[in-house]
């Protein structure tokens, strides 16, 4: 097995009042797209700045390409970074921006120009070298920022929420473009974001970060289908959260009841014992809708609810309903067939879900977030 491009060993960073990064260890394989996903304030920016060398860890070590980065200044690391606001140099042309790093390495002018032009061509900006930075569109600037870093052939490219400033349409487009660029160059990307959709679409592996630690590290599919903690279940993708207590635990399954008396079953994650306070998560697309109870998938517990509102969003349309007896809110994705296009607010409808596809966790003192 080759040495990983990035390895963190028990990295700690404390600020005056809190620990921003707490005993974090992970590795990123060569050529992979690794995302760090977390809410703002979870420590992901601190972690990225430690990798880039702008701040030093209080404890632990960061290795890039197998080499310890302790005491190595940011301008001597084989790491380049795409900043949140891109930080292109407005006093230079696009070509000078791309050639900046090469010039610092003492590459001759002609060679610099040749390399930066061929790099601009690779990111689809041939002929833009003489343009001013402010003549470019948001997406083009993004590509210049990436070209400026990749022309130095770094071991690692760090990206600090570079899509945050773009409008939705362009963001969707740039997501695809980033993934294609990463595949084309084969450079290891470390990407931080608070947007779970960006992390899921782009990454080979995602670390979900909360309060300075990784809650779970895995492929996007693992995070989505088998969340390891309630935080991951709630943060990655849409989820119905049902809080109650365990009535009975048996063979990996839990029967739980809410305080208002709704009884349901779910798969236990970790140890769940009877009478534990628990929370269960059900994906909107894991539940089925039916006008007649007989049309629901057989063998699943069936429930009834009133339609509270219809959330039309094209392919992501959903219905928000309230369970009839307890008035608890529940969200169900509408099937793409258009079968429920005529659904009305206030209508009573039957629904069910497979308990195997619902995840149930014991609520522990500090994991309520």
């Amino acid at each position: 097995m080759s040495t990983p491009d990035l390895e963190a060993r028990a990295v700690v960073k404390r600020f005056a009042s809190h620990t921003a990064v707490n005993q974090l260890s992970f590795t990123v394989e060569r050529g992979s797209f690794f995302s760090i996903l977390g809410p703002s304030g979870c420590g992901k920016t601190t972690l990225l700045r430690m990798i880039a060398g702008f701040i030093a860890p209080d404890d632990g070590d960061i290795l890039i390409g197998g080499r310890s980065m302790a005491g190595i200044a940011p301008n001597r690391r084989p790491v380049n970074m795409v900043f949140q606001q891109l930080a292109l140099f407005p006093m230079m042309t696009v070509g000078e921006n791309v050639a900046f790093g090469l010039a610092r390495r003492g590459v001759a002018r002609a060679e610099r120009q040749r390399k930066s032009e061929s790099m601009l061509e690779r990111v689809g900006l041939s002929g833009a070298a003489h343009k001013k930075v402010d003549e470019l569109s948001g997406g083009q600037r993004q590509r210049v920022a990436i070209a400026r870093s990749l022309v130095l052939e770094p071991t690692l490219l760090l990206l600090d929420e570079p899509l945050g400033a773009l409008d939705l349409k362009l963001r969707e487009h740039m997501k695809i473009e980033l993934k294609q660029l990463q595949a084309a160059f084969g450079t290891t990307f470390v990407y931080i974001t608070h947007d779970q959709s960006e992390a899921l679409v782009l990454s080979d592996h995602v670390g979900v970060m909360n309060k300075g630690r990784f809650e779970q590290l895995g492929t996007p599919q693992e995070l989505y289908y088998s969340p390891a903690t309630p935080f991951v279940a709630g943060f990655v993708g849409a989820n119905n959260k049902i809080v109650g207590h365990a009535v009975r635990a048996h063979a990996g399954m839990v029967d739980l009841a809410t305080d208002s008396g709704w009884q349901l079953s779910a798969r236990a994650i970790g140890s769940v014992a009877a009478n534990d306070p628990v929370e269960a998560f059900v994906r909107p697309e894991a539940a089925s809708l039916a006008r007649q109870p007989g049309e629901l998938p057989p063998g699943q517990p069936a429930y009834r609810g009133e339609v509270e509102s219809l959330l039309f969003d094209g392919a992501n349309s959903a219905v928000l309903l309230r369970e009839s007896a307890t008035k608890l809110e529940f969200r169900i994705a509408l099937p793409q067939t258009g079968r429920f296009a005529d659904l009305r607010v206030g209508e009573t409808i039957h629904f069910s879900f497979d308990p195997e596809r619902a995840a149930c966790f014991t609520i522990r003192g500090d994991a309520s977030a």
Partner: protein
Amino acid sequence: MLGLLLAPALLWLLALIILPHVDLALLSFRERIAPREFQTSFAQYRTFFSESIYWQIFVRTAVMSAIATLLTLLLAFPVAWTIAKLARGRASSLLFVVCLIPFWVSETVRTLGWMILLRESGVLPGLLVKLGITAVPVEMLYHDATILVGLVYTSLLFMVVPLVGSLESLDNALIEAAYNLGGNGWSVLRKIVIPHAAPGITAGCIVVFMLTLGNYLTPNLLGGKSSQWFTEQIYNQFIVRFNWEQGAAFGFLLLVLSTSMVWVGLRLSGQRFGEVMRRS
């Protein structure tokens, strides 16, 4: 309505700037041929170029002013950098006030302060004797270096203010990005910081150069008879020799020559005046 609002400023401009200048201009193109008899001529301007002492003093004043401006820039830049980039919140405003406080005292008093420090029987020569560095007190006034010290001290604030403004607007991410791409302290300063701060630097230099060139008090008090400052020549023509025509011509020469020097400076540094004045 707009005219009414601008009236005080326009009145000020007309009565105190334009009218006296028109009168001085007329005065400078006059030559006295007999008592109370005058004729239009360029004689006053010719004197400036034909009597080498006058244009030599002017060149000396300009060179000394340029040196003073450069020294002020070199001294003010680290100060401005500290205020704009290193100090945070209260500390930053406190440092600014510290720079400002000397200017609550009039220039005359500040310059007299320097004289108390530097004259032969003053504080500093006395201290040097006490420390055994010099055997007898040294006269520290009336040197070119003394004039420069006084001028730099007087001008510092006028350089710090535009520099702080232009450095504060520099995004820290640009500096970090430059380091991230392999830059070091020197190349970041040369490629990122100075190009960004150029309008502020230019504005500060223009203001300091003009103030220094037109300064009368500091060169005269600290330089004494050997100051050889051009404003002293203008003063002498008006007050000592009562030759208003010559004084007016010198005044205009100072205005035209200093303006053209600023213009050349702007051209050489690739800056535009409007841009400089707007950005700083």
